[in-house]
């Protein structure tokens, strides 16, 4: 044990990250776990790789299996509000009842299809708007004085220091009929009546673009920053003007960042619940909200589960497509 273990807990916590880990290791549950792990025939790197897998298995895979199971169940008015799949039907038989009705129901009611479509639409255009706004920002950052890059990068990440929920609430204050934007515009005499922005798709777009813009900027920045600038010099040397060099060299070399940024915005925006719930109105029927309503308002757990599984499948399809696209873009160089 390091010197840190002899110090009181408070001092150890003050000793920085190393102190904190050594302090945590002294806490009974973790100590037991560590002791148990130490007895397993595992080396250090097994543990390093294994722990995240354990985490994912425990908190992602198991819940996923539960949701998958519920999606095949019947809805009951009971506690819990769904039937179990496996029954001892008659003696000596185990029956497995899979109710695919939940999925066929999703297909039969246009509500769900429209919600998926709307989600894809909003997520897609949000990602597109993020790209249009984020690309120039990332470009400017990547070409700025290296001394400034760290500061600019920090400014992009800075909003994460405030709670996501709080930042979305703040937009309500800005977009409301008697919010700051309308008050200023009326005060300046530019408009007479407040512009209705809250509870519209516009507000949802504003919220999503605002919240996810950093996820677009960061991968774009890393791609653009890595680019070999002598390529641009070579282009200029061969008679290409700088603006044209941007379109013939810089832009064609950007796809890795564009694809990564686009997916990082598109995929979470697809299942976004908080933003359409707080900023959107009835016209914004996104799948996250439908899911919420099914689960909490209708107590239709099996339907809600089916909605979730269907969305997950959608995301998987999109991710595979993105992987293939990235591979294709990668083969270009």
């Amino acid at each position, binding site marked *: 044990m390091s010197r840190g273990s002899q110090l009181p807990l408070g001092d150890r916590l003050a000793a920085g990250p190393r102190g904190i880990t050594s302090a945590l290791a002294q806490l009974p549950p973790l100590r037991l776990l560590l002791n148990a792990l130490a007895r397993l025939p595992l080396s250090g790197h097994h543990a390093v790789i294994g722990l995240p897998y354990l985490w994912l298995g425990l908190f992602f895979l198991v819940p996923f299996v539960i949701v998958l199971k519920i999606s095949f169940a019947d809805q009951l008015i009971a506690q819990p509000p769904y039937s179990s799949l496996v029954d001892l039907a008659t003696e000596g038989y185990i029956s497995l009842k899979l109710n695919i009705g939940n999925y066929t129901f999703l297909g039969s009611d246009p509500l769900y299809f429209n919600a998926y479509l709307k989600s894809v639409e909003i997520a897609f255009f949000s990602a597109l708007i993020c790209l249009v706004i984020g690309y120039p920002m990332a470009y400017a950052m990547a070409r700025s004085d290296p001394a400034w890059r760290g500061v600019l990068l920090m400014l992009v990440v800075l909003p994460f220091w405030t709670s996501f929920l709080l930042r979305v609430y703040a937009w309500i204050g800005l977009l409301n009929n008697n919010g700051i934007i309308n008050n200023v515009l009326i005060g300046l005499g530019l408009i007479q009546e407040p512009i209705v922005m809250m509870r519209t798709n516009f507000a949802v777009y504003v919220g999503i673009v605002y919240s996810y813009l950093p996820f677009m900027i960061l991968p774009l920045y890393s791609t653009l920053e890595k680019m070999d600038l002598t390529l641009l010099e*070579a282009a200029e040397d*061969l008679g*290409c003007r700088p603006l044209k060099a941007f379109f013939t060299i810089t832009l064609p070399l950007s796809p890795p960042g564009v694809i990564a940024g686009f997916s990082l915005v598109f995929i979470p925006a697809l299942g976004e619940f908080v933003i359409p719930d707080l900023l959107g109105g009835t016209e914004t029927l996104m799948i996250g909200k439908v899911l919420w309503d099914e689960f909490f308002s209708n107590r239709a757990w099996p339907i809600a589960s089916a909605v979730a599984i269907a969305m997950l499948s959608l995301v998987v399809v999109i991710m595979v497509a993105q992987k293939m696209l990235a591979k294709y873009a990668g083969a270009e160089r």
Partner: protein
Amino acid sequence: MHDGRKPERAVDEPWRNPEATPYISIRNVTKRFGDFVAVNDVSLKVYRQELFCLLGGSGCGKSTLLRMLAGFEEPSSGQIFIDGQDMAGIPPYSRPVNMMFQSYALFPHMSVQDNVAFGLKQDRTPLKEIRDRVAAMLDLVKLSSFAKRKPHQLSGGQRQRVALARSLVKAPKLLLLDEPLGALDRKLRESTQFELMNLQDKLGVTFIVVTHDQEEAMTLASRIGVMNQGHIVQVGTPSEIYEFPVNRFVADFIGTVNMFAGRIVDEDSNYVRIAAEADGCTFFIDHGVSASPNAQLWVALRPEKINIGREAPADTRENCVQGVIDGIAYMGDVSVFNVKLASGRMVKVTRPNLIRREEDTLTWDDEVWLHWHPASGVVLTS
């Protein structure tokens, strides 16, 4: 000029002709980056169809000078003329200059032929002409069968040839090459060196090559400009630079040299005697030297200009010294002897291995005499 062929170039040493108009004229160019002076008051004339090498260690300002010619940097002061035209304020894309980059800077998303065609496309050359010229260029660098490949599918040598083809396809009057052979292995370097020289003969382009590799400079160049700390220290043909270095830096930078510090003990208009007291030998030089009588001087002696043998020379008073063989490096064509003098200093001597299996060959710990011709030593005053 130094590959053994008789020089057939249009360059007939125009730098010796005061009437000749230089193609490139660099006048008192200085480049500062903040407090750092990268290029310090450089003046240089390069003539049409020359293959001029800027030679120097890293940070000597050679690349900065090249980048100023290409237009990527503007001089802080001074002027650059190319073909009589002042280049001030002319952006790289409007200069009659092409550059081959050290990293080659091939466009990774374009095929070999698109890379080569890039420059022609910028000039809106007719498509058919582009196709023909690209094909001809790829043929010249022997890459026709690789036209459809992407740069990452090529070997280092092939990439280098693509870069060369790309910079030559626009038939520039001036081609700048930044360490063109730096990334190649030895065999490839040698063949490419000669390829470059053939191309130059064929196309009549003026080349300016930047390199830190003296061997590369010696084989390629019609003239070499040796740079140190932002200054051009010496300009001359490879043999001038090698045999008549102007100071210790040049003598030391090009090839190997044994440097003896000494003082003039006897002088006349047609000879001078320099005593290197620390090393216990006296140099008799067969020409006069313009230096103040008591000033510190140096005599530079190339290893291949020293004779080595067991017998003492006829006259042991001067131009010779005794020592013990301390080390031998057998290089195949020559052997390098490290001879330890009584003073403790090492002298490098090379001797061609003329005989395949020599009886009674020189070996370690042999007592030997080193002696040299009165014309062999170069007297340096700085």
